[in-house]
């Protein structure tokens, strides 16, 4: 009886403690079959298991010979404050962001209780036939507990079959097109993004408040269609160059006009301009000229005075 009791208690504690983390799972949601040339969306979903989470760092691997990363749907993920917006790094998609206040799940009037939260929605284009594998090579998700505690979770990969344009998709029965959980129905292509990113604000922070942090320009663009792909900056008449926010603008004697251009993944762009003040202001220039003139006048006066004195006048 004691042995049985011990076994049961051990089992209870072992499975009981693991059941606390049960449900915390990171996975993909997308259509299973696409055709070459199709652009389709893949949701990165997270079942929090009831925990409030506020930060995620995720790396996704995919077959680059079959798929092309074509952007992300900025409006359909909770990671709005990007530390690193979705981008390709060493052949993998990397995304890092935070959710101020945290989130436990999403709400759907057609379903009971909280549903998994959509962390991000990635857009892919199928470029050749085959079976594409999507899987997480790294994932760090932190609890909204004021301590940054990591939430243990399981990960699930996803397989997407890519068919020729004319090829019949096997085991695929044409259903009545219907939108489920905001997903694009099977076989439907994501419409091309023809809209420019939204108007965005350029902000200049002087370094005086934070002595070790230099003067910076910050810019956070927003593009609902395919997400911001990159920023380019033009200072005065200099050439455009690729930059990231926040940007160390450095100090200059004179004021500068700075334009930042936000490009989305479809190549549309939006400009925003700011005039960054220089160290020399108009008043400093006026005072400098006045003092120079005054010094010159004194010098002339003394010169004339000494000449007259030498002549004995």
């Amino acid at each position, binding site marked *: *009886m004691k042995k*049985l009791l011990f076994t*049961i*208690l051990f*089992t*209870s*504690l072992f*499975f*009981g*403690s693991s*059941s*606390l983390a*049960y449900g915390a799972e990171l996975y993909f949601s997308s259509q299973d079959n696409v055709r070459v040339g199709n652009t389709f969306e893949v949701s990165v979903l997270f079942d929090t*298991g*009831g925990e409030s989470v*506020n*930060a995620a*760092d995720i790396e996704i691997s995919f077959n680059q010979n079959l798929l092309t990363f074509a952007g992300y749907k900025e*409006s*359909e*993920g909770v990671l*709005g*404050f990007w*530390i690193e917006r979705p981008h390709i790094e060493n052949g993998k998609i990397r995304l*890092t962001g*935070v*959710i*101020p*206040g*945290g*989130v*436990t799940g*999403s*709400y*759907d*009037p*057609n379903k009971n209780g*909280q*549903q998994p*939260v*959509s962390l991000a929605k990635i857009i892919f284009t199928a470029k050749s036939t085959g079976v594409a594998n999507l899987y997480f090579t790294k994932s*760090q998700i*932190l609890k909204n507990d*004021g*301590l*940054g505690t990591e939430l243990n979770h399981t990960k699930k990969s996803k397989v997407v079959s890519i068919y020729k344009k004319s090829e019949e998709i096997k085991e695929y029965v044409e259903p009545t097109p219907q939108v489920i959980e*905001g997903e694009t129905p099977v076989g439907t292509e994501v419409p091309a993004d023809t809209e420019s990113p939204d108007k965005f604000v350029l*902000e200049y*922070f002087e370094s005086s*408040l*934070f002595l*070790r*942090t*230099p003067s*910076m320009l*910050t810019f*956070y663009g*927003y593009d609902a269609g395919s997400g911001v792909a990159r920023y380019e900056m033009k200072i005065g008449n200099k050439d455009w160059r690729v930059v990231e*926010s*926040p940007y160390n603008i450095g100090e200059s004697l004179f004021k500068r006009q700075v334009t930042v251009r936000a490009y989305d993944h479809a190549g549309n762009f939006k400009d925003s301009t700011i005039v960054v003040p220089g160290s020399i202001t108009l008043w400093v220039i006026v005072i400098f000229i006045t003092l120079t003139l005054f010094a010159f006048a004194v010098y002339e006066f003394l010169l004339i005075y000494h000449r007259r004195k030498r002549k004995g006048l």
Partner: protein
Amino acid sequence: MLNKSFKKVFLILISASFIFFPLFSIADETLTVTATVSSGSTPSPSGGGGAPYIPPTSIRFSGQAYPNGKVLLIKNKNIIAEVLVSNLGDFSITFEEPTDRNIMYSLYAVDSAGVQSIILNYQVYLSTGYLTHLSGILFPPTLSLDRYSAYSGDDLSIFGFAIPERALELKIEGKDIKTFNIISNKDGVYNIIVPLFNFKSGQYKIYTKYKEQALTSKVLPFELLIEDKNPEVKSKIPGDCNFDDRINLKDFSILSFWYKKKNPPTCLDVNHDKIINLVDFSIFAYYWTG
């Protein structure tokens, strides 16, 4: 024999309950989400063969905050709607949505003294032509202290706003843990004066919540000083290096600048590991005020 079998069955049932159910109840919020066909707009008269009328797609949030305060709705980092809260603490905020997808909304409330609540986030699936209503939202109480450091023997005043005449639980956690049961008055105000003579010196955190709710207010730090030590000039929010009592996009930008850089400013490195990484951002996000 029967007794033994009963014990076995009982133990197995207990074990099974551990296996299939979490040890703690984690979700106690009684949120309800419904979708109904939008009303209020009438279809414009059209000749035969016109496009079918689709009612507007909209989202409504309702629940309780703080009497005579306000509730603000945020989408894509912008405030899109603001409503006043009734003197009983009820609010309802509706927004017509041009899109019909999975959208992330954030809500926060401000009490009548201007103190901000925590941020509540809701990702909601919207359907075209439907009014999606998320009801039963309950903002945890706001929390303020009259000081952030004191000496043993001093009194600490803790106050804030909640729903009128509601039971609250206030916790002071540190070397000592004390719990106080209080009730808000008919205006939603609560106030408690805590004598500190029997507390040990050190760092404490203070928070409050409704008795029946797990979600807590903001967590505020407090330091009980040793008699000969002068209070340090410290922000009440970790990472608030400019002492403006806010954690917002400006602080986020500064933290982003130092991301993955070694030897960052001490006040930004909130977990003191000499590097700015995801953990620092998570702590920032927890204390975010906007």
